[in-house]
């Protein structure tokens, strides 16, 4: 792998940029692998990378139905944060945020991380009280968070409607200053390039059509490009988790719903933070290209449609225009949907399954992007040792039967 550097840029500029090597190999699918990962999004590619780098396993295939990062990795709003309520979640997501902080150097790929800070707006006195509890819970766990007053927020986010007649009056809020946004395609490509250079075979346009299980053990997978033998199979297929797990005879407590996002036309810099309003469930940021990126809650009905309903678009935009009146004059440039797999407690499932050799990473709901470094590392550990990584022990599949749920949905009052 040729290292990306200022020198490499200069050298290739002199060559008219005609001689850049391919970022990753596109090999033929072999008939046998030590580990097969289904899903070439951020989580699947990161899992393969950490299996190769940390655990010394390099005979790995990553099978992707479409193209790398074409699912939820390329459809999210690229936010990273670790301001969760329960200690299990804070520990996990803080580990992931630290992973993001060093990921550009780790992968030798610029993921364009901007730690611009994430502000949660309290739109009622009661919400502010809950936020004080929430922010303090995060501080107690040693993670940065800071309660903000109304005046501070007015200075930091000048485009907010702070008038006396505002429909959603801002009473205050809290910020995690280390939270931010990055370039989601670069995360997928960076992991793919690094994994490929360690010997991982990345196979695109290769759909898994069946999983071979005998005597309760994984034996291989059937794909659109032929059969592959393997004893260890990892699944990271956000949006299709129940469909793929069913091929191995595993039922999951997951419901798939559409989550939308949208961007405005590009404008000059006017928004320096990610600003969330849990009460009306609308969050916005400004991309490096100047677009205002807007997200909200998931559609309420099960769907595999990858488009989203007009009602949800309207609800999010209504809230956005009320909170930030200047948006009302702007054009919406694009709107899209991704299918998110949501567990009953809105927490992920990184776990072994009743089928030996079948490992799953699912239930990332509306917030899988921020979990990619830690999700990949912990799933890789779980696969390599056939035992859960300590960070994901609480997120096992059997927590539902034990009644040990981690109800972040209830803690935050919004989806993740």
């Amino acid at each position, binding site marked *: 792998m040729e290292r990306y550097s200022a020198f490499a840029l200069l050298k290739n500029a002199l060559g008219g940029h005609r001689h850049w090597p391919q970022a990753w190999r596109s090999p033929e699918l072999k008939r046998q692998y030590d580990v097969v990962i289904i899903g070439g999004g951020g989580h699947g590619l990161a899992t393969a990378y950490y299996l190769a780098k940390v655990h010394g396993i390099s005979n790995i295939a990553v099978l992707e139905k479409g193209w790398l990062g074409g699912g939820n990795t390329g459809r999210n709003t690229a936010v990273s944060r670790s301001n969760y309520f329960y200690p299990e979640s804070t520990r996990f997501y803080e580990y992931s945020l630290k992973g993001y902080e060093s990921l550009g150097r780790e992968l030798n790929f610029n993921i364009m991380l901007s730690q611009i800070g994430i502000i949660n707006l309290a739109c009622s006195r009661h919400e502010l009280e809950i936020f004080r509890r929430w922010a303090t819970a995060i501080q107690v766990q040693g993670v940065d968070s800071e309660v903000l007053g109304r005046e501070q927020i007015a200075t930091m986010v000048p485009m907010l409607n702070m008038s006396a007649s505002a429909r959603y009056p801002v009473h205050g809020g809290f910020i995690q200053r280390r939270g931010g946004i990055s370039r989601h395609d670069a995360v997928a490509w960076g992991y793919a390039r690094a994994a490929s250079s360690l010997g991982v075979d990345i196979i695109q346009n290769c759909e898994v059509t069946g999983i071979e299980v005998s005597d309760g053990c994984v034996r291989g997978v059937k794909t659109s490009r032929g059969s592959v033998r393997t004893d260890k199979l990892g699944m990271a297929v956000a949006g299709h988790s129940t469909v793929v797990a069913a091929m191995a005879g595993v039922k999951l407590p997951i419901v798939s719903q559409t989550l939308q996002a949208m961007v405005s036309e590009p404008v000059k810099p006017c928004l320096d933070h990610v600003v969330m309003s849990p009460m009306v469930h609308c969050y916005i940021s400004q991309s490096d290209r100047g677009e205002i990126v807007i997200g909200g809650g998931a559609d309420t009905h*099960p769907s595999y449609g990858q488009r989203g309903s007009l009602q949800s678009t309207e609800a999010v935009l209504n809230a956005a225009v009320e909170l930030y009146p200047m948006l009302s004059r702007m054009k919406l440039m694009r709107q899209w949907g991704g299918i998110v797999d949501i567990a009953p407690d809105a927490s992920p499932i990184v776990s072994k399954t009743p089928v030996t050799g079948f490992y799953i990473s699912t239930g990332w709901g509306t917030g899988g992007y921020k979990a990619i470094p830690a999700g990949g590392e912990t799933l890789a550990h779980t696969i390599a040792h056939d035992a859960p990584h300590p960070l994901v022990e609480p997120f096992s599949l059997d927590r539902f039967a034990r009644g040990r749920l981690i109800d972040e949905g209830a803690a935050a009052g919004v989806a993740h």
Partner: protein
Amino acid sequence: MRIECPWCGSRSEDEFVCGGQSHIARPEPATASDAEWAAYLYQRDNPKGLHHERWLHRFGCGQWFNVARDTVSHNILASYPMTAPKPELPDANGGEA
């Protein structure tokens, strides 16, 4: 989506709230194992294709009823009262679970 309420007729989706999978039978609490009870509470079919689900006409008549809907195309194949049996319908996507 336009949804056919059995009482009010065809109305816009934003008058309704989806209540998830329908026709779930509760196991006997005294004899069900933890796994059976967890499956009853948390496991849903989540099919890619034909799905039988409950909807509430919240901003209309306030009644619950059942809908058979395709989760890929969002086409509604049937709308029927809460107590009616599950209708036999063709699954355009072959019933991938």
